[in-house]
């Protein structure tokens, strides 16, 4: 039964993974990737790790892939067209890496004998059924592996702060400034109340930036009057 489930889920995972790479429509690739994640969750279940299986679906299939699908839908990415390969040497490297991977797999299979499903050290399986339970994962994370766990969370926090810093505009905006997505062309009269009729063009993405370019930083904003 377990072998049958393993073959079924592993086949599903590999098939979806191949489909993900081969598909030309990015949304189909995303759906295939969701299939991979669900098949992996099933594999975790057969390995007696229900907590990991649930988290796999919640985090990867439920959160990250929703964002990916969201972005694909928002940008309306068209189907990829046939283009001549730009970096030809990548093919050679890919074949080399694939050969190494297959070599490793063959090496492991050779030294494990004929039954790859049996664990190497039978004595280590004593309480294998408890390893995947929620309580033992929690205890492990907050006692033995506390430091790696905390470091990982700090790393994620750094990633969030970094993304915020990269996405933020340079300099602070006044509450009265107008922010328009993308760059725009403003006339001088929209920025300086005293220069009505002056249509000098300034390109910027906010009114504050345009004012800085024109040297009008101290002048009260039109909307403040």
């Amino acid at each position, binding site marked *: 039964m377990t072998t049958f489930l393993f073959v079924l889920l592993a086949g599903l995972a590999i098939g979806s993974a191949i489909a993900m790479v081969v598909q030309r429509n990015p949304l189909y690739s995303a759906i295939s990737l969701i299939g991979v994640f669900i098949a992996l969750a099933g594999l975790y279940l057969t390995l007696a790790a229900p907590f990991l299986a*649930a988290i796999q679906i919640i985090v990867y299939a439920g959160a990250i892939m929703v964002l990916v699908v969201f972005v694909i839908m928002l940008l309306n990415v068209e189907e990829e067209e046939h283009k001549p390969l730009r970096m030809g040497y990548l093919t050679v490297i890919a074949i080399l890496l694939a050969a190494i991977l297959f070599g490793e797999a063959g090496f492991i299979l050779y030294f494990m004998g004929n039954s790859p499903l049996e664990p190497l050290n039978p004595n280590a399986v004593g309480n294998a059924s408890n390893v995947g339970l929620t309580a033992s994962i929690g205890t492990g994370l907050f006692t033995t592996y506390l430091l790696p766990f905390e470091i990982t969370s700090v790393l994620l926090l750094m990633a969030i702060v970094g993304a915020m810093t990269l996405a933020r505009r340079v300099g602070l905006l006044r509450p009265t400034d107008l922010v328009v997505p993308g760059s725009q062309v403003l006339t001088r009269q929209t920025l300086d109340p005293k220069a009505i009729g002056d249509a000098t063009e300034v390109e910027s993405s906010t009114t504050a930036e345009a004012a800085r370019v024109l040297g009008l930083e101290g002048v009260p904003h039109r909307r403040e009057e």
Partner: protein
Amino acid sequence: MDWNTITSVGLKLLGINIAFVVVLMIVAYTVLAERRVLALIQGRLGPNRVGYGGILQPFADLLKFIFKEEIVPDKATKFVYFLAPFIAIVGALMTIIVYPFGPDVNLPVIGAVRLVAAQFDVSLLYVLAITSIGVYGIALAGWSSNNKYSLMGGLRASAQLISYELSLGLSLVGVVLLSGSLDLFSIVEQQTNRWGFGTTANIFLQPLSWNIFLQPLGFIIYLISAIAETNRVPFDLPEAETELVAGFHTEYSALKFALFFMAEYVNMFTVSMLATTLFLGGWNGPFVEQLPFLGVFYFLGKVIFFLFLYIWLRGTLPRFRFDQLMNFGWKFLLPVAILNVVLTATVYFVTMLF
């Protein structure tokens, strides 16, 4: 496979089927109840012609859905277009199996039976996982219809579900912290007799051991985010009729539309079941110990109360604007949910010390 295994598997299948039939019947009549109650609120009569007081209306609706012409847009992405309703309905129905409908009961021939189809270590996480898959039904339906209104509806749905899933998950953490378990059945069992309220002389004090009295803030946060998760008024922006025709299901007709419609109501039912299980004591209530079958009625009664609440809200509240929805979710609900977790953990730790 000996005889015992076969009977137990058969019993499980039977139980799952009974649960599905009961839930689907209640869902069908929720639609009728919604139309009648809304009519009552708005001073109309509502559908009352099919059968006595409209009692056969759900079946008439179903027949009409079956016999309607099926229209597929010419430029729709066919495969995804047909896949989306199935993801929606499967994601909605799959969670029913883990809810405990009642305590252990003695049946005449079979013996002691636990009224839950599947009980396992992480059933709460299972519910959250399946619910998070359900959003693909709506998002893909909006994308594949090749219609701007549908796409807007799908985008709104995915943005809204991502935003409110966080506060929904965090509002449940308080209950999990207190009960120390992710198994729904044991969470319900812990609400039977907390601080001796289940065994006092006055049996009507039993409700005081429910989780809602320990987690009032968590309950309110859960209720709000659950309404947002099911795309119901006042959070029904993915299908806002005034702006988007019908949102993500604009291009769906006949049975495929019926599947979306059913998925929405089954989702309402399952989030109500989760609220009942986690906060309102599940099947617990006075006299359940003497009459175990009473538990099923308590459970369904509490769920039906939540369904009534949904309809009531729909009759009284206007729709949010999208920026209001996002601001409310991220700037108010999420911080309050985090505060609830911190508060619960602190109080729990302090009471453990003394």
